[in-house]
């Protein structure tokens, strides 16, 4: 597939937005300005960006612990995202969800998820709704290699295929389930081998190549919308930082050489190099993107810092939808 410069630059912008957001979040966490846990998406930007660039605001995604990147790629704005990470009332979740539950239903992002594998069945539900409503939308479930070992993934994949739902299963194989390497937890090398067991096509793509991911997503989406059911895309990728936080806390579960090798394949810089080489864009073009977005990040941090914490009277608000909010009893 050939993509226009506009599409390519859009995907680049999504990747840079994720990178800058995550780097800033990491710095804030190290400065003890973010409460709670933080799972950074740095290194995996091409996956969320390539997939989400093929989706509309009305297509839905479900996410993982490592969910900021998915929300940024789906169109999440920096200000309410940063405010949510800082547990402020102006956050997307009004300070009640934080990093692990960050969401924005207005752009079809059905939440980061604190439970490994739990997003996949929810994506099946969204996909079911799309099919029943005939709205021409798809639901994409992002999940890691580790979550393909949990029952919820299996049930979701089987059900989506049995019911031929418009669902895309996007596996981000970053080779580690938390701190344990993939080869200790499964007897296969490629997650995509599992696709055949559900009766869906599976494709391996270079998870550091946003264009390859975008292309695979478009094909899977077209297949889903033809009524042929789900597809599994396995993106081979890598997280540059730790499972949570930034530093490795002195824990050695992967070698420095391995990390360095993957960083050589940085999804953003390699993309920029290819674009410059092909004459599609110049280094100046890219520098302008980075500079503009850095200003947006600084603005978002300021906004979040200036925002109030939730008032105590918000503690019990939204445990339930009140009857006056809808047509209920």
């Amino acid at each position, binding site marked *: 597939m050939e993509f226009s410069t506009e599409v390519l630059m859009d995907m680049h912008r999504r990747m840079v937005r994720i990178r800058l957001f995550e780097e800033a979040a990491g710095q804030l966490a190290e400065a003890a300005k973010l409460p709670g846990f933080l799972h950074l998406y740095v290194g995996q930007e091409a996956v969320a960006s390539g997939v989400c660039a093929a989706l509309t605001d009305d297509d839905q995604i479900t996410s993982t612990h490592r969910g900021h990147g998915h929300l940024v790629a789906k169109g999440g704005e920096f200000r309410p995202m940063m405010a949510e990470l800082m547990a402020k009332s102006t956050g997307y979740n009004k300070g*009640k969800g934080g990093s692990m539950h960050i*969401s924005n239903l207005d752009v079809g992002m059905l939440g980061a998820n604190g439970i490994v594998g739990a997003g996949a069945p929810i994506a099946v*539900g969204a996909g079911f709704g799309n099919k029943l409503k005939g709205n021409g939308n798809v639901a994409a479930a992002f999940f890691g290699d580790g979550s393909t070992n949990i029952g919820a993934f299996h049930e979701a994949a089987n059900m989506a295929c049995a019911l031929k739902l418009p669902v895309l299963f996007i596996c981000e194989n970053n080779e580690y389930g938390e701190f344990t390497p993939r080869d200790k937890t499964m007897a296969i090398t490629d997650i995509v081998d599992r696709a055949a067991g559900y009766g869906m096509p599976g494709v391996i793509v270079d998870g550091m190549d946003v264009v390859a991911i975008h292309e695979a997503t478009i094909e899977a989406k077209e297949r889903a919308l033809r009524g042929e059911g789900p597809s599994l895309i396995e993106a081979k990728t890598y997280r540059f930082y730790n499972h949570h936080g930034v530093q490795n806390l002195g824990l050695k579960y992967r070698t420095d050489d391995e990390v360095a090798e993957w960083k050589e394949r940085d999804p953003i810089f390699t993309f920029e190099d290819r674009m410059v080489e092909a004459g599609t864009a110049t280094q100046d073009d890219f520098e302008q993107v980075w500079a503009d977005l850095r200003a947006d990040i600084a603005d978002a941090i300021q906004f979040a810092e200036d925002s109030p914490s939730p008032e105590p009277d918000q503690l019990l608000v939204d445990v339930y939808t009140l009857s006056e909010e*809808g047509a209920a009893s």
Partner: protein
Amino acid sequence: MSRKISYVQAFNEAVRQEMAADDTVFCAGEDIGAFGGVFQSYAGLQKEFGEERVVDTPISEQAIIGLGVGAAATGLRPIVDIMFMDFICVAFDQIVNQAAKMKYMFGGSATVPLTITTGGGGGLSAAAQHSQSLEALICHIPGLKVVMPSNPYDMKGLMTACIRENNPTIMVKHKRLLGMQGEVPEEPYMIPLGRAATLREGADVTVVGWGRMANEAVDAAEKLAGDGIDVEVIDPRTLQPLDTATIIESVRKTNRVIVVHEAVRFGGLGAEVAAQIQEEAFDYLDAPVGRLAAPFSPVPFSPALEAHYLPSANAIEQAVRDIVARPGA
């Protein structure tokens, strides 16, 4: 106009009428399509509304609930069936961590109008994995609503309210009541969630019971009336939210109260009801709050053992005689 139909027909009628009135309502579960469900709760619905809206699912409880959560959060009004209440344990993550929490942890932006239906209760020699009353587990989770109707009239009104409710509700059908006959209006109606019914008025002692135990309490009360003991029977109908006010008002009148349930006594809802009574009506009590419940053991298979395991009208009768024999203040 009302006529006599069974408890399970009342359930079925509520679903059918809501599906006819609202095309966002759909049903999904194991065997519920052409077969109509193992309890025939969904009989005839697939024929009337089609395979798209009455969906036979794989035996995948996590994915069944996930299907409901994802579809509910994206604008549908799902009814998903977990055949036996024991099987909610298989789907507990989707119920407890996803459905119940989505509204709150997303800062109010999500609405989850999901109804989960299931068959609970013992008395069928169905043994330890098909007989449990697990209402205490689910009533403990903020974000869920739980109903356990004791008769056909309440079944239809509560099921209609569950379907129209904008929060996740769990409708527990008692398996021993499926064939119970009662007067049920033909037209749709709602019984508001969180409102108890006084099944029998009395002056001497209050018995609080739900599901089949409410009916056992009425049977006991009728026998005791012959001996001049005047029993008031309260069926909360909804266990979360619990209509504490009606119970307290009754206890202030009778000064003696027994709570009866099929679930095991330790940590059962009877403990919660007893605690609330002593908080709100301590000075009115002439005797400690009585609890009649299953002993701390799995449900036995043997009919001879199960008869000893489950509370009964006879056991309630004896407990009432004991509590009224105790000298008052």
